[in-house]
């Protein structure tokens, strides 16, 4: 076998600070940034790997844009270090900026022709005049807007303008691409088409990319690594499956969409299966898969991981050590949510454990349940993600 184990893509796992620093294209160390007396960013140690797409997600006001603005050297941190290839970015800000390229939410084009927009950017980097036109046309073509080269920037639609803006950034052939919600101002079909093209082009280049978004689907589609920023704090870094399937804490879970978070106390553990009692329900015992179960834990279970059965009493199984958990529950509400239906329930003997389950419409109709119905909820021991919660 090849000893290619530490290639960026195959080793993309682990939490903040766990990656070997020599693999980091960009590193933030002890970065603190305040605005109006409030600390909006405090990053202890964050490494963004060479050649990877790091997607920074978080709710509004979480400091995502501030993080990007700091990397763009548009705002200066109060303290801490920003490193590019191990050297401080701020030593020579102009030289650093010329190794990076930025695209913003709004396509900020100069009021001139489309090709001229790209050529002007290349001119800023002192690219020889003879080379500018060829590079501009090549990248406009990659983004499917070569036909608009002679148009004026103000004649473009939003999607076209953002394609030109991306082409301009790629034409600079930067080492690092910094993208601040570049797709969020576009309508859905335009966005889908552009993200497809963008993902393909990204895959063909080696550029280290930092993408800011509040859209979870964008993160799932584009990210090699997801950085979750909440209240200016890096809460989790990891591959998308890890972040979305195994949120590091309650706030991450709430943001990435695991909607069932219950607190529980460990009763016993045996050969990889831990038995917990829910704190809100003294006779609710659950088996979960956990190698090293914490004493006090939060369970995070995605709504689609739970199934419903329209019977009031849990069926007694032949094998009580079965890998499935059952709880009685009462339906509290039913809401349509796009293609699926969200069913809100109160689980446990007192019905005081809030549970959300998502079902398709046909399965809801099959179940014939309504508000007040008594049901049983079921989920696999492996569906519950156990978060240490002392």
């Amino acid at each position, binding site marked *: 076998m090849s000893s290619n184990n530490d290639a960026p893509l195959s080793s993309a796992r682990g939490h903040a600070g766990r990656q070997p620093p020599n693999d980091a294209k960009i590193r933030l160390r002890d970065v603190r940034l305040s605005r109006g007396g409030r600390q909006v960013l405090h990053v202890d140690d964050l490494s963004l790997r060479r050649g990877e797409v790091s997607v920074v997600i978080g709710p509004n006001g979480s400091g995502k844009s501030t993080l990007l603005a700091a990397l*763009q050297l*548009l705002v200066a941190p109060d303290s801490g270090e920003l490193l590019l290839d191990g050297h401080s970015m701020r030593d020579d800000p*102009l030289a650093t*900026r*010329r190794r*990076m*390229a*930025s695209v*913003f939410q*709004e396509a*900020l084009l*100069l*009021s*001139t*022709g489309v090709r001229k927009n790209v050529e*002007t*950017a290349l001119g*800023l*980097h002192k690219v020889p005049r003879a080379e500018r036109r060829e590079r501009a046309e090549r990248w406009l073509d990659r983004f499917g807007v070569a036909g608009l080269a002679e148009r*004026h920037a103000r004649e473009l639609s939003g999607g076209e303008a953002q394609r030109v803006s991306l082409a*301009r950034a790629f034409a*600079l052939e930067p080492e690092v691409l*910094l993208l601040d919600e570049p797709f969020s101002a576009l309508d859905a079909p335009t966005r889908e088409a552009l993200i497809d093209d963008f993902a393909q082009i990204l895959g063909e280049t080696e550029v280290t990319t930092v993408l800011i978004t509040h859209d979870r689907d964008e993160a799932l589609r584009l990210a090699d690594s997801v950085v979750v920023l909440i209240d200016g704090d890096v809460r989790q870094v990891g591959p998308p499956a890890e972040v979305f399937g195994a949120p590091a804490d309650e706030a991450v879970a709430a943001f990435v969409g695991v909607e069932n978070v219950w607190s529980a106390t460990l009763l016993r553990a045996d050969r990889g299966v831990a038995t917990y009692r829910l704190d809100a329900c003294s006779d609710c015992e659950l088996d979960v898969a956990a190698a090293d179960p914490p004493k006090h834990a939060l369970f995070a279970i995605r709504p689609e991981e739970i199934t419903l059965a329209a019977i009031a009493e849990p069926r007694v199984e032949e094998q009580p050590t079965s890998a499935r958990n059952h709880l009685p529950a009462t339906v509290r509400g039913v809401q349509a949510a796009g293609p699926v239906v969200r069913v809100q329930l109160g689980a446990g003997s007192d019905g005081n454990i809030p549970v959300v389950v998502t079902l398709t419409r046909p399965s809801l109709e099959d179940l014939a349940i309504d508000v007040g119905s008594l049901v049983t909820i079921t989920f696999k021991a492996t569906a519950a993600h156990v978060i240490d919660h002392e």
Partner: protein
Amino acid sequence: MEFLWNGLKEAFNLWIHGDAEIIEITLRTLAISAVATAVALFIGVPTGAVLALKQFRGRRFIVALVNTGMGMPPVVVGLVVAIFLWRSGPLGGLNLIFTPTAMVIAQFVIAVPLVVGFSMASIQSLNPRLLEQIVALGANRLQLLWLLVREARLGLLAALMAGFGAVISEVGASMMVGGNIAGETRVLTTATVLETSRGNIEIGIALGVMLLVLAYVVNLVVTGVQQQRRAT
């Protein structure tokens, strides 16, 4: 109304026959005002850009000064410049009083607040995120200034027209620092005042029409540039 008709006929005669003195006065007027406007642009546009982009102590004071300067009576400017340039004044040793250079200085002082004010307004009206984008694309300070000036070009051409329009039409400052000396510092406005006060109303009208035509032609050219840039 007959004198008006006669004035237009006289103007027509003067142009047709290429009256040497009129041509000389017209060219001098154009030269002095063009130089004054050019220097005002050279200094006023970067100053306006800095006032638009930078926050610093005393900025409000300077902006208020600029706004006041935009409406300053030319005769007051003329008086102040004259006091400086008089033989007994602080800059009297330069022997500039009653020279075209003195008139350029006075007209520059009149034009510069207009240019600064218009430049500041047009650069301030640009999208502030565009500035960040240009910086993030790797522009140095000079490249940033140049691209912002290019983005604000319509407003800056308005600054040019306002500055040139103000100085070519002013009479008070030119009279005070130039002295309206025939063959040296006489321009269209001061000549108009002189001829009219002498009772040569027809010549006065002819000069006035000449001034209007000159201002119109210059603005036509600048507007042509403005609209043509817009189309590309």
